[in-house]
């Protein structure tokens, strides 16, 4: 059987590697505090993840959706999607969410020594997990985690895995053993292509994630989830978490909300005029 992902008998690319019919996609997701809820730091300066109002990072749902669409387009049994997360026990919710959105199985890397890991420790751990999953063709992830918003992980993970990185994709096609993305970056519009295996980070504009229906939620319950420790991955606990962090939060404080200065109801049609005068008087215009 020739799946659409197969690098098959492509006369134009005689050197292309013939791809196995079964393509493996790993989607990395992060469990983050719900952006609609009150978010805070702990007194130790870490993101407070223990408040029970966490959720899967929104853009990661776009990555899950992208994987699900590739799998559906390829047909039954052609593509295996593994959802991978690293985080405390509560982060298992993010894996479950991935299973509801179409992933076939889940991997949860959890270890007490991982608390307060920086992005580079995270990249090392996720890379080790991807290697342990094995024979991965495509690593997908969201372009940013909406709690920290650093956007450092995709490039760092690509470095760890020595994979070509196609980042900030607003379009993704996978065919003939190749990933092709479109992206809009500052003043550039690009179409980039790389042979699999590759890493792709996606924007929230790439698709509209499906809603998990009852059937999908029920089906997710019987999908396998493995929990791996640092020992399973052969990583020294002293090199991750707080002990291995290359940056440290010295202080975190909630900022005072600003006092509103002007509240103007435009009853007379002159509110625009008044605003202009305000801006000029303040030297803002």
């Amino acid at each position: 059987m020739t799946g659409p992902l197969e690098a098959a008998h492509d006369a134009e690319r005689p050197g292309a590697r013939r791809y196995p019919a079964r393509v493996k996609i790993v989607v990395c997701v992060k469990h983050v505090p719900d952006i609609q809820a009150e978010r805070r730091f702990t007194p130790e300066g870490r993101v407070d993840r223990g408040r029970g109002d966490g959720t899967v990072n929104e853009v990661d749902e776009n990555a899950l959706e992208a994987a699900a669409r590739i799998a559906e387009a390829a047909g039954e049994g052609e593509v295996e999607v593994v959802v991978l997360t690293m985080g405390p026990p509560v982060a298992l919710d993010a894996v479950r969410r991935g299973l509801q959105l179409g992933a076939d199985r889940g991997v949860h890397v959890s270890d007490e020594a991982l608390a307060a890991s920086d992005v580079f420790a995270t990249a090392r751990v996720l890379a080790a997990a991807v290697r342990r999953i094995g024979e991965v063709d495509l690593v997908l992830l969201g372009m940013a985690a909406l709690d920290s918003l650093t956007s450092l992980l995709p490039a760092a993970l690509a470095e760890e895995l020595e994979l070509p990185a196609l980042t900030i994709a607003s379009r993704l096609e996978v065919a003939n053993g190749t990933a092709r993305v479109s992206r809009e970056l500052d003043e550039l519009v690009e179409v980039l292509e790389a042979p699999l295996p590759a890493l792709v980070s996606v924007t929230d504009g790439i698709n509209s994630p499906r809603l998990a229906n009852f059937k999908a939620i029920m089906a997710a319950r019987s999908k396998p989830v493995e929990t791996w420790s640092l020992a399973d991955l052969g990583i020294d606990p002293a090199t991750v978490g707080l002990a291995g962090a290359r940056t440290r939060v010295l202080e975190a404080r909630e900022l005072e909300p600003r006092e509103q200065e002007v509240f103007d109801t435009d009853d007379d049609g002159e509110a625009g005029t008044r605003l202009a005068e305000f801006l000029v008087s303040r030297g803002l215009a």
Partner: protein
Amino acid sequence: MSGRTVLALLDRTAVEAGGLSPTARELLEVARGLAGGLDGPLELAWTGELPEAVRLALGGLGVVRVRHLAEEPSSSAELASALEAHVRAERPAVLLATTSFASRELAGRLGVRLGAGVLVDALHLELDRGRVVAERSSFAASWGSRCEVLAEPAIVTVKPHATVGGAPAPASVVGPEGPEIVPLAPGEPDARVRVVERTRRETSGRPDLATAATVVAGGRGFEGDFSLLEELADELGAAVGATRVAVDEGWVGHELQVGQTGVTINPVLYIGAGISGAIHHVGGMRAARTVVAINTEPDAPLMEIADYAIVGDLFEVLPRLTARLRELRGSRT
């Protein structure tokens, strides 16, 4: 002095009207402050064409040496490889770049390659016992934090309008001949990634959204026609931004999206019209110094966080605003 160098990163897009852009000058000012505190030289890594007039001007901005990569790297992997070799050989203590998608990607790569400590989106930088300390904001600018870089080198991406504290800036140390140029060896490109198409977008002629001092933004309330907003932008010399709804509707391109998955901005003045203020958008603009909101709905979230809120119809308010600004400012010039 060796090992205490501050290396600022700029490329040819930092050239504006034959000189250095305000954002590039801001970056160099921050870099110069840190170099002063470290008692080390300020160097600049520059990629792409470097106009002679710009090179000469760099001396007055405290730059003693330019590491020049004449050929523009085609990817972050290629630039990372060039800088990795340079940092291993020359051991600068700090690398600084203006925050952008590209600089974060570069920082992520160099962090892995060099074991560097990386902080992004610094609003303020200072030195504490020789270590770089950055102030950042988090959770839609509702929290502020101070972070310290423990590993060396420190790689920091700096927000526009960032400040530097504590350290005295060194006086200009090069003469009128300007800083010396030392070629930077090109990096290894990632041959696996092929550029199928690359087009430079038509520029609007307006300031860059990420770095503009003034941003006017529009949302659903515009019902598809941003022309009133564009007129206001041009009167103010402002950049135009938009909400995700406006982008999804196809009214403007994704490059104008302000928010947590678009551009995060911290302008001096932000004016948002017809924007309810979903957290996705607010997370990208709340660091603005002054926020003006114009909305028919008094309880919209953006109205609540605004310094100046107008309950009104943007199609009435904006033309008045632009017209009055024109009158007031016209009399000034």
